């Protein structure tokens, strides 16, 4: 029953926030809920690692992989909540766009994502992945501007269509399971399928069909090219904390779903087909995103494309498979989440100070905003895989995976892509940092809360760059054993 805790806390928080009118109370309630949620997740994860897989009823289960992604979610969501408390100083009061709505929807959003990680049943998982779209659509459109509405609509429609295909894939897998004599009641239960996987080999074609649909479906939500079209719009138009949440948790949600399916498929019909598919998606995403980063004009769009690029790298890691591949992929997921959160927070500060995200209007940050500028430099170095930051390590691991499995083409593609990304970021950032600012507005100083969360991010990045704590390593190992029993 412990598993219900991380599910109910956000729901309760959401209900409370919706019900109460006082902004100050709303914020406090939000922070409390976040703290509780973090604690609950902590307990869950600890329990998982003390007594293995946890079950709650037929439909909820938490194993090593779950715990890894839960940690990710807990950390990021806590950071986001603290950051928002200062970020949302002045929200335009309006329909669906007030503090209440913001926090309420955020908690619903969190609930759905936790549910995705906790659901034991693939159908259930699909339901909640779809639910994440619905919960976050209003958040994307939070600002009610033309751009926000447009982005929200595209996000809603494109993702729903994509997810529909994922449903088709799920059904096909179910069908294959049923045909291979798995009892219809448990034919969508993940561990049952894992256990029964070797028997599914008969329905080879069906499994391939299923994986294609799942890859396209959930891939839409991960932001694989060419299904990525919603991602830059949504990330750019949403409020910065939400962009962070989308980029750092939501994409991982979808990636988690793909991981689950990939595990089954590889176990049943060998990893050849699925991994080739992921390598293709990863490679294309990496190449296209890195090129598109050169010609971006809006800071948050730039960051959004970089998310696509990094999801491509993760997909490559999974596609390479093997110890190195999966280890690198998971590590990279985590590192990317932190770095991207950090950068979106920075972008938030930039917007707060310059009143725009158009990069050609932002100049001379190094002199006018030394701290934000420093953060931008650091984040840029981290996201482009420079030491001493975590992404250097994880990218190196994935590259090592590519080389050790003799995927030289992928390796070269990756090295080239990373170089292009580095060039693009360097180009855009140096222009934002140097030069003389056009209009120096009255700039609100960084709040203590903002400084705290950003320094936490920075600390995590550096620590993961030079040293992987034992506990974290244990969690990673747990996740790996789930994927490769």
């Amino acid at each position, binding site marked *: 029953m412990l598993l219900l805790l991380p599910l109910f806390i956000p729901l309760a928080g959401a209900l409370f926030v919706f019900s109460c009118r006082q902004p100050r109370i709303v914020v406090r309630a939000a922070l409390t809920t976040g703290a509780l949620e973090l604690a609950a997740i902590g307990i869950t994860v600890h329990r998982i690692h003390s007594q293995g897989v946890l079950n709650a009823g037929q439909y909820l289960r938490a194993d090593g992989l779950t715990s890894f992604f839960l940690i990710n979610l807990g950390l990021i969501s806590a950071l986001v909540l603290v950051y928002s408390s200062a970020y949302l100083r002045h929200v335009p009061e309006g329909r669906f766009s007030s503090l209440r709505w913001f926090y309420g929807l955020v908690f619903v959003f969190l609930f759905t994502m936790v549910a995705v990680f906790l659901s034991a049943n693939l159908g259930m998982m699909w*339901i909640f992945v779809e639910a994440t779209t619905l919960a976050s659509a209003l958040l994307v459109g939070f600002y009610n501007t033309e751009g926000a509405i447009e982005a*929200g*609509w*595209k996000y809603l429609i494109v993702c729903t269509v994509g997810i*529909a295909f994922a*449903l088709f894939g799920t059904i096909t897998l*179910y*069908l294959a399971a049923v045909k291979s004599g798995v009892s219809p009641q448990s034919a969508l239960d993940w561990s049952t399928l894992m256990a029964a996987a070797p028997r599914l080999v008969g329905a080879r074609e069906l499994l391939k069909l299923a994986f294609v649909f799942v890859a396209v479906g959930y891939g839409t939500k991960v932001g694989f090219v060419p299904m990525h079209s919603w991602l830059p719009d949504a990330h750019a138009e949403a409020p910065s904390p939400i962009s962070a949440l989308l980029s750092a948790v939501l994409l991982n949600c979808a990636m988690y779903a793909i991981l689950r399916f990939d595990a089954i498929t590889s176990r049943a019909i060998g990893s050849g087909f699925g991994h080739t598919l992921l390598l293709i998606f990863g490679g294309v995403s990496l190449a296209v995103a890195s090129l598109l980063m050169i010609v971006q004009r809006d800071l948050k769009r730039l960051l959004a494309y970089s998310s696509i690029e990094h999801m491509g790298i993760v997909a490559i890691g999974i596609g390479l498979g093997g110890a190195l591949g999966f280890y690198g992929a998971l590590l990279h997921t985590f590192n990317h989440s932190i770095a991207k959160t950090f950068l979106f927070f920075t972008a938030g500060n930039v917007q707060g100070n310059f009143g725009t995200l158009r990069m050609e209007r932002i100049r001379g940050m190094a002199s006018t905003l030394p701290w934000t500028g420093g953060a931008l430099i650091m984040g840029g170095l981290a996201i482009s895989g420079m030491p001493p930051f975590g992404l250097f390590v994880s990218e190196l691991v994935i590259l090592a995976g590519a080389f050790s499995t003799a995927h030289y083409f992928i390796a070269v593609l990756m090295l080239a892509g990373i170089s292009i990304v580095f060039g693009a970021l360097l180009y855009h950032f140096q222009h934002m940092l140097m030069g003389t600012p056009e209009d120096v507005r009255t700039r609100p100083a960084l709040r203590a809360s903002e400084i705290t969360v950003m320094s936490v991010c920075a600390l995590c990045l550096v620590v993961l760059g030079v040293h992987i704590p034992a506990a974290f390593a244990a969690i990673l190992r747990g996740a790996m054993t789930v994927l490769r029993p």
Partner: protein
Amino acid sequence: MGLFETAAAKALASSGVFLFMTVLLIAAAKRTSTCIALFSVQSLVIAAQIVAVSRMHHLPEGFAIAALVLIVKVITIPYALHRIVEELKVPRDVSSSTSPSQSVFIAAGLILLSFFAVRPYAGVLGGDQAMLAASVALVLTGGFLMISRKKALMQVVGLLVLDNGIFLAALTTTFGMPLVIEIGIVFDLLMGVFLMGLFVFRIRDTFNHVDVSKLRRLRG
């Protein structure tokens, strides 16, 4: 094999044709409300199929699902959509980028395509080939509608048709998934439609039109 079973079997066999007709008609329809009506008819056919199937295979929960479909897809959603159309007070034609005749031909082509598409799987799945083809056809036309129709609402309709197709596929191949899942899926659909309606209104309020092909501020 009682009378009812034979009737059900007949109905099942022929219902594929009904579905194809709805597809073609939706493609041909000029007015949004017609499409919505056709969609509810389509859902009705599917509900009927569920009843028939579950009767034939003695799946008690099938009836529950059928009822669910009846309530949500045949009544609630079409009603809600009609209300939206009324509320929006915008021109009601579907404003397609292809003429009705072209649309019909394309839809017909898609149906043929779906027949070819399902042939290799007919053996594996065993299910009725016509039904499979129908489901694929629904998916394809749903997609076609979303791509070709410029009205925001028509995209919703297209999505619903597409969803019907997937639902049908699940039904014909596996006689439905566990009840909880089905309920969840339908609930998601309901929420989705609700949200989309919401967004349609906001689009109308912000842009003074509901033509999605004109939403091109964000690009590159």
